[in-house]
Structure formats: C-alpha cells, structure tokens
C-alpha cells in the first residue's frame, strides 16, 4: 500500500458485489498518528498538531525505539464495510505479524462471511480465489503485492 506524503490516504475497504455503486466514495484519511521522529523537514512549520512535532515529548530516541513493545509504530485502523451489513467495523492493519491471511480471517470473523479464508490457506484445492478491486478499478489477486 503506497503512502503519499505525510497523510496515508486510502479508501475504505468495502466488501460487496462487483460493480456495486460507490455510495461512499470519499477518500477518507485514515486514523493514524504521524511519528515526528527523524523528520527534519518538520522543523520549519510549527504545527499545531502535537503529534507532528519533532522531538516532542522529549523522550530520547533509544527509549522511543525500545519501548512500547512495537506499539510505537503508527496504528493504522481502516474502516471496513460490507454490503448488507448494518454497521461498519475497524481493523488495525499495522499490528505486528499481520498479513493477508490474517486480514481475511479477521474479515471472516467480523462479518461472518465464511469462505474467504479457505482459498488463502489452500489455494490449489479450493474452487475460489480471493480477489479485490484496487484504486484503479482493476481486479487483483490477493497476495501479489507485499503486505508492507
């Protein structure tokens, strides 16, 4: 997933029929916090958003890197909607160890849409393959693009 500039712009994930009209087509900014660490170009604008201030709070970089047991990385929560589901869910994509199979399993659990995980686990014996529509409108096989 490409990041552009400081904001991570990504559409919501939508589970639905192909060609289904985009009811909510706004590109929404993800719930994410931007690390100020090492971002020297921030020195110029005194931003109001404290999470973008370089070197604040003044915790030394060694401590920053070695604390928080990995929780220090920006959490990237993404909204997920499924056609027909009464409410949306949120998934944290940045949790360590996550990958495509974790994602589809999480989707199965959250929406009860069983059946998408199986082709991930056992591609050969399954009749189905999981695919997704990317931002260009093309149908892509899940798994080609590295998770990062």
């Amino acid at each position, binding site marked *: 997933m490409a990041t552009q500039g400081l904001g991570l712009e990504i559409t919501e994930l939508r589970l639905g029929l192909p060609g289904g009209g985009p009811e909510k087509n706004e590109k929404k900014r993800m719930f994410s916090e931007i690390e100020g660490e*090492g971002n020297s170009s921030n020195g110029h604008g005194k931003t109001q958003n*404290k999470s973008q201030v370089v070197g604040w*709070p003044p915790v030394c970089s060694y401590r920053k890197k070695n*604390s*928080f047991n990995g929780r220090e990385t920006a959490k990237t929560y993404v909204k997920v909607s499924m056609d027909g589901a009464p409410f949306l869910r949120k998934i944290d994509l940045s949790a360590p160890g996550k990958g495509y199979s974790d994602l589809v399993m999480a989707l199965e659990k959250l929406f009860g849409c069983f059946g998408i995980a199986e082709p991930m686990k056992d591609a050969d014996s399954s009749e189905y393959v999981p695919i997704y529509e990317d931002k260009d409108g093309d149908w892509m096989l899940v798994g080609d693009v590295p998770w990062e």
Partner: protein
Amino acid sequence: MMNYFPDEVLEHVFDFLESHRDRNAVSLVCQSWYRVERFSREKVFIGNCYAISPERVIARFPRVRSLTLKGKPHFADFNLVPSDWGGFVLPWIEAMARSGVNLEELRLKRMVVSDESLELLARSFPNLRSLVLVSCEGFTTDGLAAIASNCRFLTELDLQENEVEDRRGQWLSCFPDSCTSLVSLNFACLKGEVNLAALERLVARNHNLRSLRLNHAVPLDALQKILMQAPQLVDLGTGSYVHDPDSDTYNKLKSAVQKCTSIRSLSGFLDVAPRCLPAIYPICLNLTSLNLSYASLIHNSELIKLIHHCSQLQRLWILDCIGDKGLGVVASTCKELQELRVFPSDIHGVGSAAVTEEGLVAISAGCPKLNSILYFCQQMTNAALITVAKNCPNFIRFRLCTLNPTIPDPVTMQPLDEGFGAIVQSCKGLKRLSLSGLLTDQVFLYIGMYAEQLEMLSVAFAGDSDKGMLYVLNGCKKLKKLEIRDSPFGNVALLADVGKYETMRSLWMSSCEVTLGACKTLAKKMPRLNVEVINENDLIDASSDDRQKVEKMYLYRTLVGPREDAPEFVWTL
C-alpha cells in the same frame, strides 16, 4: 605558607580533591599550584569534546589515566541534531595512543564511536580497565569483540542506551578464560543473541562481578543459572523475564533469587510475564534502585503489588501507566525516595494512561527526601507546583514535561509561570530545570531572580519576547548550558551580553527568531566561541540574506577554533 611546601606535599593535599571543579579552581591560584596540579591530575573531564583538542589535554595532563568526554548537544537525544553532526572519539584515542598515555578508563557520552576506534583502544592501552559508553553510536559488536579479546584487566564494560549494530558474532565468547577481573558488565542495549554457555562460564569465573545487566536475548532459564553462579551481585538487569510460573525452572529461579541477598538495584523486564514477578519479591525489600521504565507489559495492579515490597527505594524509574493512584502507593511506601522518573507509556500522547499533577503532589507530600524528578504528565496546575515547591525544597533537578507542550493550567487556564516560579524560589539548590506547559516571559523573570545555582535550563515553546531570554542570561550567574527550541527569542537577546557565552559551556537555539546576521555578528565579536549554524535543508548559503532566520544554532566556547570535522551542513561562522 603553602608556597614553601615541596611539590610532593602539595600533590598529596590535592589528592584529596575529588571533583574536577575543585582541581580546576586550585590550578588557578598560582603558577606553582597550576604546575603541581596538572602533573598530578589523573581524571580528566571534558564536557564538550570540541572545546579543546586531545593534544592540548594530553600536554597539560600527561598523567591522565581516566578520560570522560561528551560530544553531541543534549537535544540530539530528541532527533534535533542531524546524525552526522560530529562528536568522533577516534582523534582522541589516536592522540592518546601516539603520546603513550596510560589510559585506564574511558567514559563517553553522545559520541560517535567506530569499530576502528574500539579496536585501536583495545590494542593501544593494555591497562584499560573501564569502558563506559552512554548514548553513543557508530559501533558494532565487532568492536566489542576487540575489547573483550584484548583488554586483559577489564573490570567494567558498561553500555547504556547505545545504538549498536549487532553482527550476531560471538563477541561475548571473546572474553578469554583468563578474564576473571570483571566487576561490571552491562550489555542490555544489544539486540542480538549471545552465547549463553559462554555467558554462564564468564559469570562463573568472575567472582568479583557486582553488576550484571543482560539483554533481551537472555531467557529466564539462563538467568536462573547465572544467579546461581553469582549470588554476590549488587546490581541486576534481567533479560527476557518470561516463563511458565508453574515450571521447575521458575521454582529454581525463586530459590536462586533468595540467595541473592546483596542485590540493591534492579532493572530490565523488557519482556515480562507478570505472573513471574513474585520471584523477585524477596529482593524488593532491600532494593534502593528500581528501573521498570521499559517494562510496559506489567499492569498497573502488579506494579503496585511490587512497589508495596520496596520500602527502601531511593531511586525509581517507572512508566506513567502506574497512574496517580500508583504514585500514591509509592508516596506511602517509599519514604527514602530521592529520585523519581515517570516516563510516558504512550508516546503519541493519547494518554489516558498518563499521570497528572495529583501524582506529583502525592509524591512530594510522601517523600521528603526527593531531590530529583523527571515527570511526563498529561497536565499540571500552578497550585500543584506551588504545593510541591513547599513540600520539597531540596530539588536539585526538576524536569517537567507536559505531553502537550503549551498546555495551560487546566483549572485556571493560566500559564504555569507561578508554579515554576514557586519551584525556583523554594529550591535554592536547583541546578537543572526543564520547563513545559504554557509559559510567558514571567517565568523567566522568576528564574533569573531566584535560580542562583541553576546550571542547565531546557526551554521549549515558551516565552513571549527577547525579555524572557534576557532575564535568564542576566540573572543566572552559574548557567552552563542553555537549550531553547521553538521560542520567540531573537537577536536582541542573543547579542545583549556576548561575554556571557564564554562563561557557559554551550547555547542551543532552534526554531527561534535569531537571524544569520546576528550569528555572524556574534561570531565576529567572540573569536573564542564556535557559532555553528546547522543547515540541513540547504536553506542558507554564502549568498543568503543576513535577515534570514537560522533554523538551528549551536554555540560553545572553545580554545581551538572551528572544528575540522564539521560536515557540509554545519557552518561555523
């Protein structure tokens, strides 16, 4: 009368002087005292490695055996200084090697240490006993292997919070079987595996080992075996502290710990299974120092249970997830507490876990011996600070950090000027102060008026005008280090008293209102200052307008002029 004593007598008298400041003072009395002192000084402290050259240090103190060097400015800790700025130790080691200095001890802070430096160090000084590296970078475990292999009389290898590239070699195995002199070994900051069998054998044959801090890669079962071999330990840093509390290994750990009756200082717990904590309860009663600031996996309730056992604590480093209630428990349990550091557990400051002014007030009320505090908090009030000032007039170090740098007193919506004013007025021995929260020029008026012993001041997002900075420069006679970021201080303040900077070690100003022209003026007037403009984004060059603001300026007194190792983006005016 002292002039009629032979030099040996003078030297013997000077031997009783511990601090380098006393020795510096003594050497100013007269020529003969200067001479005697310089030939007898064995421990040399250089607070800024660019203030003087290694050659001149060695020339003045030929019998130097112990050298302490500091490199980068303090704000380098917070990524405000680009990584190639400088602070290289190699020239110092080369100079000492060339001059045949009998170096026994080297202590470095915020310096760049290459493997080449470590290898040269190991080869050149057969009597090297002690190497302490704090917040350094640039070396790998290969450099450590060289130290381990060659320093036959090594007693201390202490690595604190360094950035070390772990080559996953066998550096620890490089300590020869003949190495039996170790007293202190701290490799907690290393990321990689060590040969556990070699570690156990090393501990077993070093009977004088008093301080041992393991890294994350040393599991609990290895810890248990190590403690069996070293019940004499005084300071322990655990590695990974995770195991099944119902296991045989854990039971063995419990009995090993019970034999370690000398442990007074405990740290580590980077990875921790809280149900294994009870094993350390027996040593808690004797602990004077406890560092749980990396133990983010210990829940509030377990922390509090642990603290209940620690009635002798003098120093406590902890995460803010302890909460105000937890700090209340500290206040009622740890009556001997002198130093407290409360670090943020959630760096992004969403901070529902954070502590508030309540915790600090509780500590101040319960711990009368408190003299040093570093406190990251969600909010602070003037009333709380005034109470703390009344309860604890003995602060030497007072560092407060509100997660929102410009937050006012949430009750009154006023700046925190009065609160900090109370601190400086009450704490007559205050040497170090870090400010935060909404602050006007008024707080600096108070600091200039009352903080007579202040040596180091850290300012961020504070003040209204040049007056603020001027109050400090005019008032704080003992000021050594001033570091300011994102504050509206400019040329008038910078140039008002240029002679002041020669009485100080250094001044850092970033994202302030100082212009290139003013920096040039200062540099021209004061040849014994290096005025460095740190110019990362190529914004300033020879053709730049003098009216342009300088993003980062670092100036320091020096006897040796502009440094030759400055990178391209550092411009010494």
